[in-house]
């Protein structure tokens, strides 16, 4: 990372931490926001946040590593989480999983080389009456069929490129 980039990131984090207050109970808010903006929480970010909150970086790392919606490695712009819990399994999540892997060309736990999509398993999404269910970032899709996958991915893809800035703004809200 360039020194200037580091400085910029530090400034950003400092503003963010101050907006939530420099106390331990702000930590999860801060980390969730960093994750949303940067698609992960880098080691450097963890160190800066720890410094600002006056705790050890290991404390921050321990929190990041605990929660499944916080990541230490960079995730795609669109994180797809397919529910693998019992009712979605019975409703045919395996077929959905296969189709996602085929259409994205990656396995679960991986990110596409262009950094657009990550594929993950999720535990019960609370959509059990209408499985199989999956999350794409915050958006929920239910009663997913293998055939629907292509359309869902195209929906995401239509937001890249020239539309990317609009999406970025949407994500900032």
């Amino acid at each position, binding site marked *: 990372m360039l020194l200037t980039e580091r400085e910029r990131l530090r400034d950003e984090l400092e503003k963010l931490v101050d907006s939530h207050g420099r106390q331990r109970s702000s930590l999860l808010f801060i980390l969730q926001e960093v994750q949303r903006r940067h698609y992960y929480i880098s080691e450097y970010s963890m160190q800066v946040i720890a410094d600002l909150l006056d705790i050890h970086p290991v404390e921050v790392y321990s929190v990041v590593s605990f929660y499944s919606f916080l990541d230490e490695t960079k995730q795609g712009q669109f994180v797809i989480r397919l529910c693998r819990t019992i009712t979605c399994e019975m409703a045919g999540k395996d077929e959905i999983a296969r189709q996602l892997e085929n259409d994205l060309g990656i396995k679960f736990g991986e990110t596409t080389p262009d950094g657009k999509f990550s594929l993950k398993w999720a535990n019960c999404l609370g959509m059990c009456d*209408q499985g199989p269910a999956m999350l794409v970032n915050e958006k*929920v899709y239910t009663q997913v069929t293998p055939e629907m996958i292509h359309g869902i991915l195209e929906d995401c893809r239509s937001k890249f490129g020239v539309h990317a800035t609009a999406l970025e703004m949407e994500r900032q809200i």
Partner: protein
Amino acid sequence: MIAPTTKNKLTFSTIEPGSGLEAALTCGNAESLKIINTSGLRGRGGAGFPTSLKWELAAKQPDEEKFVVCNADEGEPGTFKDRVILADFADMVFEGMTIAAMVIGAQRGIVYLRAEYTYLRRHLEDVLDQRRKQGLLGKNVGGKKGFDFDIQINMGSGAYVCGEETALIESLEGQRGEPRNRPPFPIDTGYLDHPTIVNNVETFAWAVCIMAKGAKWFKKFGTEKSTGHKLFSVSGDCRRPGVYEYPLGITIAELLDKVGGQDAKAVQVGGAAGQCIPRSQFNRAIAYEDVPTGGSIIVFGPHRDMLKIAANFLEFFIDESCGQCTPCREGAPKLLEGVEMLQRGQCSMAYLKELCSLGETMQLASKCGLGQTAPNTFLSIVEHFRDEILGRTPEKSK
């Protein structure tokens, strides 16, 4: 992108908004607490702790600062009633929190919303804003002098164990969501060491109904130890999955009849942490004194492979265990290994018995509810479906 959830008629839709809080403001703290106490309302999250007792203990604490926390970290597999309540009756949940705040003397309320339900957040914030404008949150709530109360929403970050109240509080404090040793209990040492009550989404909504319609009305339904109606999230192999409201004490067979799951071979009551009830016991009642549940009812049809179900639940617990205590962290993978041996048809009776005693050890020695309940489904499947799981040939267990 979400299909509408099938529902029967819910009591929540018949309650006039604001009538519960109005009744509570009129009759005062002590009387309100008495009404909740008489109603016999118990925690709708599944554990069934008497709601009035929790509130009373917190009310007695001399602390100036107290908290009302709504547990909207609905992560139990097969549960989705809180999602429906938050989407359709958010006002009632906030109203219930306000009544609780009045009773215990809290100034701040927190809704801990699971990350998977982020899409509900905008709606909840809108409802909160509306309530602030109506004077139902903020300073002098409902016109009562000195009653200041407001509610904020905190997001979870994807951890099932945070549904356990002390883990939830840890998470609110910006820590790993690891359950605490108890005592001390949250009612005196909760969020930031202040007295805190943590109640389920549904519990708050029922508190409003009770204040509006009276304890007697509530007690008319249910059993002696499990009063009132309860919302059930029904999923799996039945014709009409959805959210259903029925009195506690309803038998599993009756419920299956209503949702079109009569041919079920087994029913999982209480989610991954609950029990797997075989057909021979479908006359058992869903109530705190018999088969308790936070609402999760998963129906397994005749063609389901019970070992696959056991494996799915164990994988869930292995993934969600916080790893803090040994029985849970090490026990669940051992049980899963055993299930895989059974699937391959390579498990001796002696080893199966070993596994069962390991399961019992986990129930006894784990620190929190997650580890204590993780072996439940395994144990009930081993107990009730021996013929199906023993002596398999590998091709049979695909």
